[in-house]
């Protein structure tokens, strides 16, 4: 459906986006993941025809997206990172304005504005000004404003920035409803858990380049470790700490061990290796104060690809 091919953009000496390519299939949700300044917003701006790429192209169903009155834009919806609303214009008037920009008018526009208000749960606040809304309500209206023209592809640029957990859940409910309708989404974020919850496909971007472009399962498979075991020992007297770490690292299925005082973070090739490791610690006479197992997270994938965390 959407094809991004070799996009590049420089600002002076700084190369913000460097040959970014990826595809979005119909009905697919693509998570565009990367730290602040990675080039996500610049990429999104080029996809939406807001800025002209130095090189590369964006096509939607074979039609090139360009600046200006590009017809392909009719099938795109953008939810900007900022609250792009007129604060003193009633919610329904905001929606009518953004609908009219896509050629909607009259009864069709009114009907569609009411539909999207209902979708984001703001029907009862239609005549109120956004300046009287909570942050979460504004975010939902911000999404609604991109839905008036029923776009095939919705691009959300960090739509949950500055939103409380409750409102975040409400936004996710809306996005999942859109996804269930078969709409394609591009979701940019530096929040791993959000992307993990929504995306069928993940594009990891850093320093303007695509580092990974695959479904989440495949990204996990590429990791040397699949699970993690956190152990907190009641004592460390039986073996010296260095010897304990070295012994654990030599066990079958253990990929690595990090020690922080009496806590041990043990990376495993699979969750099935957790039980033998715990049994070995017991056999060695260690008393466990606490233990927990966890699946490897996207954060670890990003760490393994870039050597730094997403929030660096």
């Amino acid at each position, binding site marked *: 459906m959407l094809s991004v091919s070799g996009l590049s953009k420089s600002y002076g000496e700084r190369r913000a986006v460097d040959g970014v390519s990826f595809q979005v299939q119909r009905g697919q949700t693509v998570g565009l993941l990367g730290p602040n300044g990675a080039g996500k917003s610049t990429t999104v701006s080029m996809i939406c*025809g807001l800025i002209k790429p130095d090189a590369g192209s964006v096509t939607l169903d074979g039609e090139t997206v360009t*600046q200006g009155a590009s017809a392909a834009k009719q099938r795109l919806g953008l939810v900007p990172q900022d609250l792009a609303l*007129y604060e003193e*214009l009633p919610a329904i008037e905001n929606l009518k304005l953004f609908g009219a*920009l896509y050629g909607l008018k009259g009864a069709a526009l009114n009907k569609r504005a009411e539909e999207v208000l209902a979708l984001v749960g703001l029907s009862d606040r239609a005549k109120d000004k956004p300046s009287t809304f909570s942050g979460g309500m504004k975010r939902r209206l911000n999404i609604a404003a991109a839905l008036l023209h029923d776009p095939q592809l919705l691009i959300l640029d960090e739509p949950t920035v500055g939103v409380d957990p409750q409102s975040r859940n409400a936004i996710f409910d809306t996005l999942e409803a859109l996804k269930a309708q078969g709409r394609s989404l591009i979701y940019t974020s530096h929040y791993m858990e959000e992307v993990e919850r929504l995306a069928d496909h993940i594009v990891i971007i850093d320093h303007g380049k695509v580092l990974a472009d695959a479904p989440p399962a495949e990204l996990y498979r590429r990791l040397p470790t699949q699970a993690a075991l956190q152990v907190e020992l009641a004592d460390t007297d039986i073996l010296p700490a260095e010897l304990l770490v070295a012994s654990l690292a030599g066990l079958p299925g253990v990929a690595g061990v990090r020690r922080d005082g009496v806590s041990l973070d043990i990376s495993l090739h699979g969750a099935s290796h957790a039980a033998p490791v715990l049994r070995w610690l017991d056999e060695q006479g260690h008393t466990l104060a606490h233990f927990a197992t966890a699946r490897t997270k996207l954060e670890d994938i990003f760490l393994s690809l870039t050597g730094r965390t997403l929030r660096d």
Partner: protein
Amino acid sequence: MTAIIAMIRKDLILYLNDKRALMLNLLMPIVLAAFFGSLFGGSGSGNNSKIEIGLVQQDSSVIGRKVGDSLKADANLSVKEMSLQEAQDKVRAGKLMVAVVIPAGFGDAAGQSLFQSGSKPELPVYYDPSQSTVLAMVKGLLTQHVMQGVTGEVMGGSATGAKFTDDSLKKLEASPASEDKEALVGLLGSLKKFQEREAAKPAKESSGGGLSVPFTTKDEALSSGPKYNGYAHAFAGMGVQFILFMGIDVGIGILLARRMGIWNRLLAAPITMSQVLLSRALSGAMIAAGLMVAIFFAAMLMFKVEVTNVVGFALVVVAFALMTASFGLLIAAFGKTPEAARGLAVFATLILVMLGGAWVPTFVFPTWMQQLTVVVPTRWAVDGLDAMTWRGLGIDVALQTAGVQLAFAVVFGALAIWRFRAQAR
């Protein structure tokens, strides 16, 4: 077209919903124009303002009293008699522009001096240093009244006049012989005969004698329009100023939209940047034109300002509105942040309205400045509005002033679009 209409509609709703801005844009120019209009002569329906002067009458002679009475009777002066101390205090405090002292003995000394050389009696005049123009006017009037008073008495048939003539003849006869002496004795002899004849006439047949100003002026205010109305110019000036301030908001609105991401949302739609800018300019122009019409409507209702050429007025207003809107676009195009742009734009606007004659008419400017200000768009706006109101000029002047403003609008708009496009790259 749907998109442009929707964006214009949005701007109009936002503007009309902002009651505070609306009141500020509408009330402020009316209040200030009412003030400035009264300074510029008001609606011209009342009497001309008189110059208030103080009179210290220390001379009780016939001539001294005559001069004082003559000053009091002058239609251009409002004379209040007071003591020397009070006169000096009031002038010093700025409560009186000029005070004239007629010192004791002035009348006699002035009468004696008329035909004799030597020192002349002094007439002290105190004045506020900030009112030197008024001083010149008062001195002119004073000269007229003193000359009329002194010569009327000396050359008339009164006993005072005869005494002055006799005294002057005696002094002349005692002086050494000369050609001038002979001529002057002849003149005074003739005067004496005239005085004796005047004295013999009944009072009502006497010509009164004396010298008078040998002309009168016939004053006629010339303009093609109705009677001059100072409010018309004041409303034009203040309207132009405050509508330009509104134009700044047009630009600041764009800068805020860019900061808030609304700009990106607009341009993500299948419309061009030129359409977005055009809609903003049109909505700004509509608001500007609406404000100017409302301001002049108030001027017509409250201060009897007349619009003498409705079509010409409409042309000038529309051209000014478009120029204002494109000025707003220019601010948005070259402004970096709303805060910085606002400060700079307010400064530029104040300079424009000052040089454009919005505060005081351009004819009071020095000649070189009057010539320089033809490159200031506000000058054409104010001149155009003056022309279509109190000057009552024709459609040709409206076309000229509107045309120049439209040219400025095109230049400002083109510069703004060029800059916006450069930024989009």
